[in-house]
């Protein structure tokens, strides 16, 4: 197994879960926004929070890929 292959595979697989998660979060948030446009501020704030948590996992896998590649 070539190093570059492993690096590419790390970030490719590691990015799939968070991408799905962010899609689901934003989808539900938009649904909630459609039902209750008055709560837009609260929904938006909590959505950004949820997206940050989900994206952190993708960032972990990116950092692992970078560490494998450059050390």
């Amino acid at each position, binding site marked *: 197994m070539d190093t570059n292959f492993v690096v590419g595979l790390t970030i490719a697989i590691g990015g799939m879960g968070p991408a799905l998660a962010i899609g689901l979060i934003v989808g539900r948030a938009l649904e909630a926004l459609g039902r209750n446009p008055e709560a837009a*501020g609260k929904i938006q*704030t909590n959505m*950004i*929070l949820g997206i*940050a*948590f989900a*994206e*952190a996992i993708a*960032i*972990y896998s*990116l*950092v692992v890929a*970078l*560490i494998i590649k*450059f*050390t």
Partner: protein
Amino acid sequence: MSQLHISISAEPIFSLGGFNITNSMLTSVLVTVLFILLILIVSKTTRKSTKPPKKYSFQSIVEFTIESFYEFVKGVVGPVKARVFFPLIATLFFYILVANWMGLLPGIGSIGLIKPVEAESTFVPLFRGATADINTTLALAVISMVMVQFYGFRYLGLHYLTKFFNFKSVMGFFIGILELFSEFSKIISFTFRLFGNIFAGEVLLSVIAFLVPIFAPLPFLGLEVFVGVIQALVFAMLTLVFINMATISHEEEY
């Protein structure tokens, strides 16, 4: 063809009595100096509220920025707590914002020295984005989580410890242990979220500039400006939410 130079750890530029000063530390000092200059300029040119206001003065821009962020913090935690937490949160937000953006300026990462590193001469940049170094983001994360515990103890006293050592039920006990571990995992998560986003952005810009130097880096620079704002906002907002969760007493939870 010049070599693409990417290093995951910040390179030391010089050492002061055994302590290595790295290039990201120099950039952090630059950010701090910038803020001090800003404060000095605003304090010297501020007009008292009795004089007639100038339109679009520097003072009004600064006031607008601070006030809109204060309204945002107020919207999350309410007016009473916003007064207490706002200095920490605003400092985190503005410091991380300027540190993120400083990594995009021309000269950061490109001006440097040729130094012998491990028996071969390599190019060592003199400045490097401050938040593109794990040490900086780790320090910021530790500050945030220590302040969460501090405010928790200040608002709830020793009752705050029942969040972690909950002997009311078996389930509560395990949840308490989980909460204890999650405090440490939040430090790691804060560190790597900020570091990963900013460092990955720097790598992306380096690679794009290496491959296609004309016009192609422009949309990526725009993306990095946006990512800088979002990551600073997320760091500050998550700290605020954690402090809020640590300071609500159990009676007013619902």
